[in-house]
């Protein structure tokens, strides 16, 4: 019985590593520039 209840695996759902890496790279590449109260987005590769 102890085995039955203690060895229960909980499958945590998570996104792919590629998605996380993409987001981190996107964040690093994104620059916001403000010119006369207007914000411009730049993606630096």
């Amino acid at each position, binding site marked *: 019985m102890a085995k039955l209840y203690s060895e229960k695996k909980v499958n*945590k*759902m*998570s*996104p*792919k590593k590629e*998605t*996380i890496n*993409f*987001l*981190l790279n*996107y*964040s*690093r590449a*994104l*620059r*916001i520039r403000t010119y006369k109260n207007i*914000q411009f*987005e730049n993606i630096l590769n």
Partner: protein
Amino acid sequence: MEKTEANDAFLVKSYIEGNEQSLSILINRHQHRIYSFIFSKVFDKDVAEDIFQDTFIKVIRTLKRGKYNEEGKFLPWVMRIAHNLVIDHFRKNKRMPKFENSGDFNIFSVLCDSGLNAEKQIIKDQIEADVKELIKELPEDQLEVLVMRIYKDMSFKEISERTGVSINTALGRMRYALINLRKVIEKHNLVLTN
């Protein structure tokens, strides 16, 4: 619990100040909850992946633009963005529904290509070639009427005018042509079906 909230707020502040590592920690910390939440609504891994990505793109842009204020908590705010994107996803699908081939019902059981496949087309061509050879065994007058009727798609009136016989004679020749053709087929024991 409060410690985590404080940590989130600290990490957000640190990220806004330019520390990219803070975002990595935030994503790693909350990815399971956010992804599970999205998946529980859409039940599709690929769609959940897309919505998860769009959610964090929005988070990153808002934080970098300095438009986030730490009034509420970070996680509920991200969850709200994810929730709104899930709603957008369903709205978009409602406007442009797509059929997914899953479960017991197969769309190809009601949709089919009415054209012949390559094998059946070859058989059909073969049968037509055989018939063309067989009709050569018919008497000349019957052959003439059959060719005009079947291959040239002429009416019996046109056939009678062309051949100079009455319509009844043309009809009779056609009838005998078919009877004789059947006899030839039976004699040679041929099977002409597709």
